């Protein structure tokens, strides 16, 4: 992980030292006032010694911090141990309307476009309670992709017991308990769009799981009225929060709003309750003040910034705090918080209870620029997305790829982590997106069990097209070299854009400068002059490791720009750090500008 750059705002972390300092300053003045009011000289000397020693300790701390190594012995780390035992946190709620107002009008979080703070030294996201790079790091099989987070599904041994109506969200539904005592939330399709919300939910659950997020287990189920029964203890909670015993009529009324197939069966998503104690959603900025493991401001987490790319791909316009979920996971005598994404009903062409609005993904709910342009032009200025035509597939809603521009895609309202996304974050995410092959996408789309084969084919084709657009744009905004590896005395590398995109010509050449790198001082000194190579393979000059050792090894730095007639952004510098010690030479750092 990178160190936190000085001055990066983290509300919770920042406020703490300020208040402590203020208190200390006040008490110090009081002490000095006391000292000058008649204590013996020896006592004054002792107090002075104590104070001076404190100053010395702080000086040592800061001087050692200032000279901290860029690379630590265990870099790059691949697991962030953020599951340390924590005290009992308090459950909370993200206020839905406030979240909209705050993010739309106040722009919370640290808005400086600094490099993501939770990445390792080679620019990857270590596994954590937030994210585990699954398909992007170790390709999953089709079976694994299709299974996603699912581990069984509701038991059919007995009738499902309906225990409560669904609270929150806009889709109709209720909670059931199966024969094993496991609780599921059943959610249905709107009458106007059979199969739409349920297929979107199950498909995108698989995608976001494969990408690396923690998601709920979602099962596509079909049942008839005979498969459910009212639990004697079932409760109905109305809109105002009042509880009363649930009745069969309540179930009937909920089912009246659900699409029922020609076979008389209802199609639903059975969403398994997430393991652990619910703590409410997380915000896309700051940290949880009650979670010691949560030390990186969320707006600077790579996987939350990169979520913008994944959300754009799959049109997850509802990617906001309300659709996140923290749970307290307990086990082996300890407890920690795990962070989930959930509710993918408003993805692809679905807006859960109706087809997605054309605005979704193209404009925030409130955006002053287009609004005033529209008002003052008397509507003569037409938002470009209004002219987009969607094919008529009720089971898909409104989803398309031709107008889609990944860099311009927007969620329902601003998201601080999305706003902080850098080209490097997007490159990281786009590489994961491009890991999904056509066949794998096809297999995942099939899990949506769309009865219209043409709709299924269109959906697959659209996801593929959007995937390619995501890759074509974001992989070409930075120097796309990757897969750096030491092979004997050479450094070999690859070009992600050429490897993952069709029809992208290889680079013309590479402009290379080697440096000795002092890990303590974080200084570099060129060795030799710049060279041009036409091959993705460079001899590592031994002189590059002639700098001083940090006790772990000697370091070399390679600065490389990629020359291409077609992609000027490839010329953006990329730095690769190598460490040499008695175990050999290894890549320990990668930084993209």
């Amino acid at each position, binding site marked *: 992980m990178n160190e936190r750059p000085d001055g990066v705002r983290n509300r919770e972390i920042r406020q703490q030292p300020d208040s402590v300092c203020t208190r200390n300053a006040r008490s110090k003045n009081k002490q000095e006032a006391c000292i000058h009011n008649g204590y013996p000289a020896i006592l004054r000397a002792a107090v002075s010694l104590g104070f001076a020693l404190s100053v010395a300790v702080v000086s040592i701390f800061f001087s050692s911090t200032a000279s901290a190594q860029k690379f630590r012995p265990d870099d790059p780390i691949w697991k962030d141990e953020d599951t340390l035992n924590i005290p009992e946190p308090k459950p909370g709620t993200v206020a839905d309307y*406030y979240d909209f107002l705050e993010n739309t009008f106040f722009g919370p979080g640290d808005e400086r476009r600094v490099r993501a703070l939770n990445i390792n030294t080679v620019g990857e996201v270590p596994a954590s309670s937030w994210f585990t790079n699954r398909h992007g790091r170790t390709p999953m099989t089709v079976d694994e992709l299709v299974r996603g987070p699912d581990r069984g599904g509701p038991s059919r041994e007995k009738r499902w017991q309906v225990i409560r109506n669904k609270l929150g969200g806009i889709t109709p539904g209720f909670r059931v308990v199966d024969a094993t005592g496991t609780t599921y939330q059943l959610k249905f399709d709107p009458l106007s769009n059979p199969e739409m919300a349920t297929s979107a939910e199950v498909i995108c659950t698989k995608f976001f799981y494969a990408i690396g997020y923690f998601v709920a287990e979602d099962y596509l189920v079909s049942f008839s009225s005979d498969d459910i029964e009212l639990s004697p203890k079932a409760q109905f909670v109305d809109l105002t929060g009042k509880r009363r015993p649930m009745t069969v009529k309540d179930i009937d009324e909920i089912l009246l709003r659900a699409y029922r197939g020609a076979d008389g069966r209802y199609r639903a998503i059975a969403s398994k309750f997430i393991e652990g104690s619910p703590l409410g959603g997380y915000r896309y900025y700051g940290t949880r003040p009650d979670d010691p493991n949560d030390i990186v401001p969320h707006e600077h987490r790579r996987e939350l910034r990169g979520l913008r790319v994944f959300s754009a791909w799959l049109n997850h316009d509802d990617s906001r705090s309300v659709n996140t979920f923290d749970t307290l996971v307990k086990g082996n005598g300890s407890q920690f918080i795990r962070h989930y994404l959930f509710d993918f009903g408003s993805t692809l062409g679905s807006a859960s209870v109706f087809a997605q609005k054309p605005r979704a993904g193209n404009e925030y709910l409130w955006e002053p620029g287009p609004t005033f342009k529209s008002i003052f032009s008397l*509507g003569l200025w037409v938002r470009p997305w209004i002219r987009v035509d969607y094919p008529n597939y009720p089971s898909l809603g409104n989803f398309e790829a031709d107008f889609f521009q990944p860099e311009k895609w927007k969620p329902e309202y601003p998201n601080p982590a999305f706003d902080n996304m850098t080209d490097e974050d997007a490159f990281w995410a786009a590489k994961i997106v491009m890991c999904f092959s056509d066949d794998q996408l096809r297999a995942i789309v099939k899990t949506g069990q769309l009865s219209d084969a043409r709709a299924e084919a269109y959906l697959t084709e659209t996801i593929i097209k959007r995937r390619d657009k995501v890759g074509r744009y974001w992989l070409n905004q930075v120097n796309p070299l990757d897969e750096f590896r030491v092979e004997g005395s050479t450094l070999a590398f690859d070009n992600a854009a050429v490897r993952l995109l069709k029809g992208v010509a290889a680079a013309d050449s590479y402009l290379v400068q080697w440096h000795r790198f002092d890990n303590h001082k974080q200084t570099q000194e060129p060795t030799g002059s710049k060279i041009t190579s036409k091959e993705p393979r460079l001899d590592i000059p031994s002189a590059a490791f002639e700098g001083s050792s940090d006790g772990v090894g000697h370091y070399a730095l390679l600065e490389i720009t990629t020359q291409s007639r077609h992609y000027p952004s490839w010329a953006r510098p990329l730095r690769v750090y190598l460490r040499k010690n008695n175990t050999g030479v290894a890549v320990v750092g990668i930084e993209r500008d």
Partner: protein
Amino acid sequence: MKTLLRVDWIGVALQASIAIVVLLASAILPAFALAQDAPLTRQEELRQQREAKSRSVKPYKPGSLEGGALYVQKERLLERFAEGWKGFHPVLGGMSTGSGFAGGVRYEKGFADGALSFKTSGAISTRVYQLYDLSFGAPKLLGGKLSLDFYSRYRSFPQEDFFGLGPDSRKQDRTNFAQEDSLFDFTLGWNWTRWLTTGARVGYLQTNIGRGTDKRFPSTEDLFSPADFPELIQQPNYYHADAFFRIDYRDEPRNTHSGGFFELTYKYYDDRKLNLYSFRRFDADLQQFFPFLKKKRVIAFRAHTALSDTSSGQSMPFFMMPADSGAIALRGYREFRFRDRNFIVMNLEYRWEAFSGLDMAIFGDAGKVASRRRDVNLKDLESDVGFGFRFNTIKSVFLRIDVGFSHEGTRVFFKFEPAF
């Protein structure tokens, strides 16, 4: 000066020497420490940061604005507001145009699984307009085909405007009168299809007229002679019978972007009290909405005409005559600016979406009143233009602000309902 006199020079020297030693040590120690200690691992560094944070964990405390929003959400205040309290709901607006801001309470209750409904409400405005009503109905009999409804209403509108009759009435002849009536209606409707309804209504209407309470203008009887308007002295009570035919295929009746609404109504008012004011009236209300650009733009057109006639020896009281100006007719004129036995009015609006919660509109209105049916034509129309803001949800316009301009001035209307 006192402080200087108390300086302990020995203590100062001692402190200074200790400080020098310690500062020297602080300059040397870091290098010493770095040379001696093994480098900190990344994992250890992170662990230390987490340990440091664990010493100061605290629950999240929302700010006042967020706390308020959370309270509203947790207590479900918006839902409770919408749901009402034990069947009681707040009422905003809904009174006659020009009545000022109106508010009140509505009580609503369903019986027999929604087969029967009961509603009653009371509202009062800043200009002391009052309206109380009560209805009891069976809206979905015979599988939704048949609806029955009983409706009764008492209203007291103390300063309704009257400018005289006809298209040539003068703006400066503005007067006001108090209107009070009680209505008892029974309606039967038959829904042939989802969009076609026919029905009939019978009822009893008791009317009363008094002095207007708006002191800025004369009361009607002070300017207009009871000889010309005998209904100022004596008011009729009516039995009435209506028949209506309605086609309604609008996409959302309270926030329409496409479809149409066509209603024809024939009414007969029989003055059983004085046998002087019986009349017949035919209304045609035609609305059509032409959407384009995915319903983000709409051309909305409305034509509304009312034609009245009386048998010989009968006349129509002015307060029962239709008026063609106001919030949904000629919006550049004062409400009830033109009255007569017949009228025609046309509204054309171009509406466009500013953002998902606001539609804008520019509009033009034209219309006229006439005492004779044959004068109801498109000649010599009064007209106006204007613009409007329509704050909306998907299903309804909840606030409409229209600004109309005519040769008689500028009018601004705030309404809690759509234009049409």
